[in-house]
């Protein structure tokens, strides 16, 4: 009816006016600095595509959701997959039992190759045996340096977190640190625990661990501040993830401490902090490389029967140290989210 549409449009008028005003305001509210417009296109490296037949590779890790390190592993794996005409199926679960189910899932999907991390080798032993029976080649990456051969994996890329930790411990020795605190953001996470254990093995000074609630950043900040206040002898804060290092910078300032900060893993903001000197150095295990090599190796094996290390030796991807002297070279790639 005419009258109802007329009255309806009159009722809609104020809403339309508000929406229009909001749109205009939004259009005028752009930022004059920062933001996406000011950053270059950061799509990462890309190359052509192989003409070999399409294959499927499953990458099964023990990543906890939202973890930065594994995100980079995945990016490296995807880059290799894109180049080699591979369909990459990524799945992860920090619980070892669930991780082995995911591997079984891949076997059921009849993939052409499987790449796994051996955080808990015993839990994956059976399912890897099943993969071999099904004639699916399995390679290892990141964790399992001392177990991959026993379990019958073809090759191994990367090094254990323990090795990375040991390297950091040695570096601390070389710069004369006396007391370090190792900040674990998820108590019970194997990779994180291995890193701190590695540091303890080689560091000649004292290392204390500090458990923080990684799902609540303000709480992380408060707890590190509390530790630095409680123990004034600490001269190095070692964090196990880039975001936590940046938070530690705030804690050090809050606590009025003179401690320096070192960390594992990189991210965009971390390289800036290293070049500014607020963070001393970072251990770069080159997760991108670990993921890339793991996937690419399966392509090589399928198409040419090659396997690195000849079944005897692992392929180490690091650890590399990034500090003020070489951060500039790495910064661009960290900005891409691939280092």
């Amino acid at each position, binding site marked *: 009816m005419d009258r109802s549409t007329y009255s309806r449009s009159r009722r809609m008028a104020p809403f339309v006016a508000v929406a229009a005003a909001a749109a205009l305001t*939004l259009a005028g*509210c*752009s*930022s*004059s*600095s*920062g*933001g*996406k*417009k*000011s*950053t270059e296109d*950061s799509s990462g490296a890309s190359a052509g595509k192989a003409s070999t037949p399409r294959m499927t590779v499953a990458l099964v890790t023990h990543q*906890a*959701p*939202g*973890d*930065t390190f594994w*995100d980079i592993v995945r990016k490296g794996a995807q880059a290799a997959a894109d180049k080699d005409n591979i369909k990459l199926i990524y799945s992860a679960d920090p619980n070892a039992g669930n991780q082995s189910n995911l591997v079984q899932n891949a076997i059921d999907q009849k993939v052409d190759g499987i790449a796994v991390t051996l955080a808990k080798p015993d839990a994956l032993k059976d399912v890897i045996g099943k993969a071999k029976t099904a004639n699916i080649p399995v390679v290892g990456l990141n964790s399992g340096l001392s177990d991959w051969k026993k379990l019958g994996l073809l090759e191994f890329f990367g090094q254990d977190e323990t090795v990375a930790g040991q390297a950091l411990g040695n570096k601390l020795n070389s710069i004369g640190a006396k007391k370090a605190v190792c900040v674990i953001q998820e*108590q019970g996470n194997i990779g994180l625990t291995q890193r701190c254990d590695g540091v303890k093995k080689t560091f000649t000074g004292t290392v*204390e*661990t*500090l*458990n923080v*609630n*990684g*799902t*609540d*950043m*303000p*709480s992380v*900040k*408060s*707890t590190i*501040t*509390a*530790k630095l*206040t*409680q*123990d004034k002898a600490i001269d190095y804060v070692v964090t196990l993830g880039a*975001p936590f290092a*940046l*938070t530690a910078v*705030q804690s050090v300032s*809050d*606590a*009025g401490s003179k401690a320096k900060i070192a960390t594992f893993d990189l*991210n*965009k*903001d971390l390289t800036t902090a290293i070049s500014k000197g607020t963070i001393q150095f970072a251990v770069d295990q080159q997760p991108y490389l670990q993921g890339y090599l793991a996937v690419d190796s399966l392509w090589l094996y399928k198409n040419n029967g090659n396997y690195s290390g000849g079944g005897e030796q692992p392929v180490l991807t690091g650890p590399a140290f990034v500090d003020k002297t070489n951060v500039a070279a790495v910064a661009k790639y960290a900005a891409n*989210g691939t280092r």
Partner: protein
Amino acid sequence: MSMTQHAEPAVTSPPAPGPKETDGRTSERPLALRLLARPEIGVFLGAAAVYVFFLIAAPPVRDGASMANILYSSSTIGIMALPVALLMIGGEFDLSAGVAVITSALTASMLSYQLTMNVWVGVIVALLVSLGIGFLNGWMVVKTGLPSFLVTLGSFLILQGVNLAVTKLVTGNVATDDISNMDGFDQAKKIFATSFDIGGVNVKITIFYWLVFAAIATWVLLRTKYGNWIFAVGGNKDSARAVGVPVAFTKISLFMLVGFGAWFVGMHQLFTFNTVQSGEGVGQELIYISAAVIGGCLLTGGAGSAIGPVFGAFMFGMVQQGIVYAGWNPDWFKAFLGVMLLGAVLINLWVQRTATRR
């Protein structure tokens, strides 16, 4: 049909009562015991006991800067514990409260960055999104009649997944980009994430917000019509509806208040740390609920206060940081946390029982 023809009914109205008589069976308990029986006092004493314990066991706690740190740690829990407590008094749970904080921060950050907007635009859109999520939660609970535990469990999982997936989709990473050099950032930081120097101690602004919000929440709960509705809707929803209390409005608005809290804490987090990790927030909802329950809010609804959760949140922050200040073995951290909280709650219970028995 008039009244005059029927047999006289056996019952007529009661006689008017005499001058101010009393029932006479209840004698006044002494003021001290009456105070002790209030749930807020019990949790206050529990919190005081915890504080005194750490004053003795952990020397660094005696320092003013340490107290500021503990209060800061309590305030980020406390600000969320307030609307969660009000919602619990109103008879519902919100399990998505933890990840909702991160959703809010992610929205503000990604919107501002991707569209290169003034950061305030992101802040306002994040507010609308958070209120919208609260509205959806409340509307679903009211419309379906399902337990809010179930409904918000669903929204918790959805938000957790969306946080991770959308961040990855939009930024290509698991964390957002740095927005600290964008327009409006410094202003917003002054409002949400700044700190003051008081007597040489650096005090974060969230502590003040926490206490102000607590005062407002207490006033609303005890001194307004809406507060009466909250108690009624949580105590007996059907009775409330029968006497004309707008049950749907009350419940939905309570969920939206939780959304507002999530926005506020999310903004604080964004402007303190610049970047937001998309996987955070999981597990925080249990801490908020614990602070509310320790503070005397009944799990079944209908009773509680806004002051109690203030002490509940303080207890949490005190224990969490106190363990570190005391230098105890960090492997036992979670176990210590649990033991201390249980201890505080038991003290609370004992005080209440003693006070009401005498």
